[in-house]
Every structure is written in C-alpha cells, then in structure tokens.
C-alpha cells in the first residue's frame, strides 16, 4: 500500500468510522471550549492531515505521564491518539530496542526534519556533565539539544519536563532542570501535572495537528484552554469556602459535611489545572471530591512549598474578580464561569 500516511486512511484501515471520528472531534472541541462549528473543521482538517510524526523522549521521570495517557479509562481515546500520530520513538512503548531503536529515531528525525513534534517527559540532569541520566551513552541534555533542532514544536508533558518537578526538589542532587531552561529557540508548550490529565494531552495534540500550531499559552507556557482557571475557581466546595465553612481535621463534622479543605492545606486557590472540571479516571472524581486537598502538582516547585497540610497564607493573592462575584453565592460562580468559557471561545475563534 503506498497511500500517503494520512489520518483518514489510517482510520479506515483500523476500522474507525468517520462518524466515530467526528464524535471524537466534537468531544475534544467541547472539552477545549471551542465553538461547536470547530469540531467539523477539526474533523475535516485532521482527516486530511498527515499523521503527525512524534518523537517522545523520556528523561528523569517515573513513567507516570505515559501511564496516565495509555491507561486512560477510555480505550477509544488512547486508540485515537495513536491513530493521529505516528509515534516514531518512545522507549516504553516501542518494540525495537538498542541500536535498532536509536537508528529508528535518527531516521525519523531526518525524514521529518523541521516538522516533527517533540514530546518530552522527565527533567534533565545537568550536574557532573549530566551523567545521572543517559540513553545509549548520550546524556539527556545532549539528546534534547540534538532532537530539538529539527522539531516544529516541543511539548513538555508533566511537571518534571515543564518545571523540573520532583527531581528538581530541594536539594536537587542531579541539578535537574526543565526543557525551557535549556531550549530557548523553539515554541514550547508546558502541560504540567503529576501526572497531567489524559484528555488534556489528547486535546492539545488534536489542536496542534488541526491548526498546525500550539494553542494560546499563559505566562508559564501552559495551554490556556485547560489552564486558565484555578482548581479553586471551579471547585464544587467553593460555596463553603465563601461561607467560611472549613473542615479542621479529615474526620470532623465539617469534613463529613463536605466543607472546604482550605485549612487542611488545599492548594486549589493557587493551582491552575482542569481537575475540577474534567476530573480523573474517566470523569469519576478528583482529589478534592475524594476528601483530600489539592497538592498543587501542576505548579512549579510544588514539592518545596512547605507542607501539603499547611494552609496557604491568607489573604489569598487577589484571585481575579471571581471571588467577589462568588461572594454572592453559587449562581454567581456559575455566571462567572460562563463568562470565562465565553472568553476562551472568542480568543480562540479570533486566532483562526
């Protein structure tokens, strides 16, 4: 078969109907608060798109990010992502090993030079010449610099590659740094989280393949579509926060009544992530819904910000006008949220 490797053909080969695909795109568009019409444009563009060549490098990491993506509870999500991309190198998932694997990577880098998407998970050790993590005798640092040269863009998946993460935690014995500490001349998108939410990874990949560029980013280079609001902005316990009803221990009356976990150290107010809306494990719940505060895992240095159980210092940094609106009660929160999603929609449709 010498059809070009376009996504539409590859979907047909694996028996995924175009209706299924349109449905997937609609769900993705809805997730990213894109206007519904974007779903058709997305399905259309994706169908014709070449499967995106992806090179995935894993550095100092725990493989949790790959687990998050590949063990996502929705098997179709996982399958569709792997249809969308041509994963040319990923140590954990590829069958090849040793010389064969390395030469596959070099070949893919040459064939799609300037066009491939480089995904990185894990931080990069820089101390002692980077000896703390090497692949086939090459330090992570050198591998990253080499692979970044031909990349169209880089996606740092997980808090380690985005901000240094746990390897970077005090006293940082390996001199671990983030991708953006080393690479300065390429578009880099950070998708932090320890690990990130699987559909967030899928969403940003779909966006890149559809529009050929990264979505709009915030000041920490995170995609605004998923990281515009804090956990606290969207937390269902927020009405209790506004009423000053706080659980004082994990088993007191307040905890049993589902009151706010702020005094138990919840980092929701300073953490930008989509857990409160997209949730985890296929939308089952998220940590706060299970009774534990947010650890702030998608923020830089979350490990070194004092105890997970110490309340954030009051007063909270002026937390956008939502707090004032929220003081009026749950409905006001809702309206503010509606305004926010509208804001996303306009900024995205303007961009096109």
């Amino acid at each position, binding site marked *: 078969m010498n059809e070009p490797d376009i996504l539409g053909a590859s979907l047909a080969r694996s028996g995924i109907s175009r209706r299924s695909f349109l*449905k997937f795109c609609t769900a993705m568009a809805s997730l990213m608060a894109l206007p519904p019409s974007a779903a058709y444009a997305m399905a259309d563009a994706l169908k014709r798109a070449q499967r995106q060549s992806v090179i995935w490098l894993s550095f100092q990491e725990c493989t949790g990010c790959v687990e998050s993506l590949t063990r996502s509870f929705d098997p179709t999500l996982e399958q569709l992502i792997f249809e969308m991309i041509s994963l040319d190198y990923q140590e954990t998932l590829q069958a090849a090993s040793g010389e064969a694997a390395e030469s596959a990577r070099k070949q893919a880098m040459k064939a799609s030079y300037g066009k491939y998407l480089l995904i990185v998970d894990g931080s990069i050790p820089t101390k002692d010449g980077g000896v703390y993590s090497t692949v086939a005798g090459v330090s992570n640092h050198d591998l990253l610099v080499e692979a970044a040269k031909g990349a169209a863009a880089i996606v740092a998946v997980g808090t380690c590659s985005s901000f240094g993460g746990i390897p970077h935690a005090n006293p940082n014995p390996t001199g671990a740094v983030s991708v953006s500490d080393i690479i300065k001349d390429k578009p880099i998108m950070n998708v932090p989280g320890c690990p990130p939410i699987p559909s967030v990874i899928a969403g940003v990949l779909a966006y890149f393949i559809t529009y050929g560029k990264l979505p709009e980013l915030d000041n920490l280079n995170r995609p605004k579509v998923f990281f515009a609001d804090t956990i606290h902005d969207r937390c269902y316990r927020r009405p209790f926060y506004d009423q000053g009803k706080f659980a004082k221990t994990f088993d007191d009356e307040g905890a049993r009544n589902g009151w706010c976990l702020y005094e138990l150290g919840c980092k929701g107010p300073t953490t930008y992530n989509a857990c409160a809306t997209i949730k985890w494990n296929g939308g089952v719940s998220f940590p706060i819904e299970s009774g534990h505060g947010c650890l702030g895992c998608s923020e830089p240095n979350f490990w070194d910000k004092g105890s997970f159980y110490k309340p954030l210092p009051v007063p909270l940094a002026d937390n956008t006008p939502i707090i004032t609106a929220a003081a009026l009660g749950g409905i006001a929160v809702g309206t503010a949220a509606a305004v926010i999603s509208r804001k996303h929609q306009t900024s995205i449709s303007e961009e096109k």
Partner: protein
Amino acid sequence: MSGLDNIGTKVVNPLPSPPEDGLSGNADAILHEIVALLEAYTATGQTGAIDLHSLPLTLDDYELLRITLADGEVHAHIDAIGNSEVRETLYPGVWWVTYYNAEGDIVADLIEVTAVPEILKAPADDVREGLAHLRELLKQEQP
C-alpha cells in the same frame, strides 16, 4: 463484610440551595439563542450549534430546556464508539444531540440548528469504502 458500613457517613448536597425556582437564567439565554440561530437558518441557510457544556446549567435549567423543546418526530440512535442520541425537538430543524463514550458518560451535549445533523449523514468516504467491500463480497461469492 469489610466493616465499612460501620463508619458513619453523611451524603449531602454541598451546593447551596438554588434560588426558589432553581433557574440560573442560562436556560432562557439558550432558548433565545436558538431563536436567533433559527432566524439565521431560515434567512440564509447558515447552520448553527450551541455547546451545552459551555454554560453551567442547573438541573432545573435542564428540565426547562427539555420541557420547552420537547420531543419531535425523529429519534435516532448511533452506535459508534459508544452511543449517541439524536433527537429532533418539537421545533423542526432544532436537534438535541448527545454523545456518550464507551462507558456511558456524556462527552458532548449540543443543540444543532440544521436540516439534518452532520453525524447522521453517511460520510462520502465511508460510502465509497462500503461499496468496495460489497463488490468484493459479491465477487467472492461468484461460483
């Protein structure tokens, strides 16, 4: 069996009780948007859609939408990576389209204003492939 039942728990609705009628005003906004979309469609043929997930809706908002739009003549069920329900409402050309994933969770919930929602039409490429398969099958069956 595990003794978990002995642990006292209380299930509460943590949301404050909504205003008397339980409506946020968003259902009303959506109904007016539907009117605007219908006006555009009848005037220019421009189709439109509203993503119900992009607005926070209370249960009562939902109920109001369901009651106002009500069921029309068409109800289609699509079986592709999970279920999808496509219902025409009482107002011809206004469709309520709900997509579920394989686990049965809603992944998208839309109001579409159009003659036939895109998802119901057989995509041309699929038609062409189906034709090829059918031809192939008949060829094999020739004695």
